[in-house]
């Protein structure tokens, strides 16, 4: 009997093509759409991949491919592990990456566990642009997509051997995004020409509105200062600010100013020029390695510190307890707490962690 693969279908073209490729290869493919927010009939509902309209798109694509399809409810865990964390993170002056949280807690945890343990699936597939390989030694490796411009391996760094052994990324093997579109047309998928999803899937408009509504305490105006303490303006609350942000901070100086850090204790935002960015070292938390363990207690690597960011050569020193690490970048970089620092060795993701704070060292 062929291998049963559950494909997480968002309703978009990428995951639909992923399902089509697997079905074409003769796998026993089952489509699953994850409801991520509570059902709503409002017409201005968020255009999240986990909302009803997207579910209909996914259902139509699955029907077109002739594969079984189920809508499963993950709204509770998504609300708790993704949306709540997102709000808390912004409210505490950090900049979360909700895609990382969704992959970590929802797709490759709750969904993967369900399809394997409950529904007899051997593997899970998604429409992510990344690749999984097994080396001669039997170790599973996570690689960048063949199309580097579309690569999404950054948001998958938390996958370890257990998950990688059960994961397929069919479209990560394609040479380019155009190939995905072309395949969608070849397979006659109804969503072949659908626009790509952007932004934060569960927020219909400005994410700051959500944070403001859920965490009003983070929207108390406070001073905008230069590094020397000189007040140059007033911000509308740290919940709406991001380290590294340049526009819309609330200050009009002659030079280009970035948010260098947020001082929650004083409700202050410190801004400065590019030249004032001197931080090279960051403390990481919640570190994870695809191999299961770090290559060494101290090792050289390169780190992407934002989605689609170019990796910067670095050195990593893992804490004794194995949960945290110190990241020392070869050049200064402005990294917002809450962002993922993803460690690469060439095209391979070896792991990563969440940036907790800048270090003086």
């Amino acid at each position, binding site marked *: 009997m062929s291998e049963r693969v559950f494909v997480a279908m968002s309703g978009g073209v990428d995951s639909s093509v992923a399902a089509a490729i697997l079905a074409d290869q003769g796998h026993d493919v*089952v489509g699953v*759409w*994850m*409801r991520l927010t*509570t*059902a709503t009939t409002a017409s201005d509902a968020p255009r999240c991949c986990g909302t*009803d309209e997207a*579910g209909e798109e996914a259902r139509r694509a699955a029907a077109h491919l002739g594969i*079984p399809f*189920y*809508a*499963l*409810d993950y709204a509770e865990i998504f609300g708790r592990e993704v949306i709540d964390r997102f709000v808390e993170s912004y409210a505490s002056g950090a900049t979360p990456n909700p895609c*990382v949280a969704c992959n*970590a*807690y929802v797709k490759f*945890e*709750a969904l993967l*566990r*369900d399809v394997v*343990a*409950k*529904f*007899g699936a051997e593997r899970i597939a998604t429409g992510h642009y990344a690749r999984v390989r097994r080396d001669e030694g039997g170790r599973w490796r996570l690689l960048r997509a063949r199309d580097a411009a579309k690569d999404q391996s950054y948001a998958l760094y*938390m996958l370890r051997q*257990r998950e990688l052994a059960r994961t397929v990324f069919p479209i990560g093997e394609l040479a380019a995004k155009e190939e995905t579109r072309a395949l969608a047309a070849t397979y006659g998928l109804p969503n072949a020409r659908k626009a790509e999803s952007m932004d934060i899937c569960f927020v219909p408009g400005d994410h700051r509105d959500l944070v403001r509504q859920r965490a009003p305490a983070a929207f108390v105006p406070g001073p905008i200062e230069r590094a020397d303490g000189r007040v140059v303006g007033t911000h509308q609350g740290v919940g709406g600010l991001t380290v590294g942000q340049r526009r819309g901070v609330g200050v009009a100086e002659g030079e280009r100013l970035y948010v260098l850090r947020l001082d929650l204790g004083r409700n202050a935002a410190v801004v400065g020029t590019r030249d004032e960015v001197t931080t090279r070292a960051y403390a990481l938390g*919640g*570190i*994870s390695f695809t191999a299961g363990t770090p290559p060494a207690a101290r090792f050289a690597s390169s780190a992407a510190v934002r989605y689609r960011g170019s990796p910067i050569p670095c050195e990593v020193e893992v804490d004794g307890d194995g949960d945290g690490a110190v990241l020392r970048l070869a050049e200064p970089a402005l990294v917002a707490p809450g962002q993922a620092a993803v460690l690469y060795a060439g095209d391979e993701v070896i792991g*990563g*962690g*969440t940036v907790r704070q800048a270090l003086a060292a």
Partner: protein
Amino acid sequence: MIRRTYLDHAATTPVDPEVAEAMARVLRDVPGNPSSVYAEGRRARSLVDEARAQVAAAIGADPAEIVFTSGGTEADNLALRGVLTAREGEADGLVVTTIEHHAVLDTAEDLERHGRARVTRVPVDRDGLVDPAAVARAIDARTALVSIMHANNEIGTIEPIEEIGAVCRAQGVTFHTDAVQSVGILPFDVRSLPVDLVSVNAHKFYGPKGVGALYARRGTRCATVQTGGGQEKGRRTGTENVPGIVALGVAMRIASERRERDARRLAALRDRIVAGVRERVPDAILTGHATRRLPNNASFCFPGTQGESLVVALDLEGIAASSGSACASGSTEPSHVLTAIGLDREIAQGSLRLTVGRDTTDADVDRLLETLPAIVARLRAASRETVSAAP
């Protein structure tokens, strides 16, 4: 394609071949509009009349008391909205139970929200039974309508509609019953049952989807909901669905002919399911009344599972069943019926409804009993598995 075992006859039934043939004949050979005066129209009209007589005969009614609708939901809407509209200004009370179908519950809520009805929702006991005395207490001087289902669609409990009807009669209140789940399965005769309005739906007894009827006892005050050309004596205007109506009539006639024999056979299959499931999954909870239940309904809760997962896992093994708590859109809110009979939210989430029908065989039951216990065990094990720490 793997062999399928269909155990969701409460959701819908396969169309009887004789019904399909009758319907196809109309589609092919009867082009007329029943309202037209010429031969084609007269032909269509006579077929509608014949179907009306068949439906009436099956429930002991007069043909003039049958109003064709697009199905059970429309029949329920017509009954509730029609009576409340007809009694506007003199009576506005509407009494329902907490376990009605959404076609009744949501209509009641809508009428309430628009200030057109005062709604009283009578609770049920742990078996899903309504106490006629509680209905009596819920009725007041301005009650226009009592609407209580004959048999529950999720748990199969059969309500004491004779006693409830008697209570309504004694108080001079109109009584509607949604008999969508029971007509065609249980004996139903309006000459002995004190009911004024009855909803039926063809696809629950091997007819097509999209056609049903409302029985309205002569003299019952029920206004129209739609306005238009005045068909169905103005009670349900709109050009008649002639093929559907013909099919409803044939399905009704066949159901009457087969009912006693079918009911015995269905009850035997259901009893095998209930006994077999209880033997293999000792902590399974049979929901609904132990004996006062539809002969085709076996419904359970399996603690430690989710109905949504049960349905998916069964489907992947070739078995079609449904859960009170799951729907195609992937929402896992527990069913209002299961919470109304006092089940904990968590228990109610593990619900599964198995409903047998004419095409169900002992082999189907065997297959279910071979498959289901392993699925329940697997889901329980999966739910117990701890979530590993993610970053």
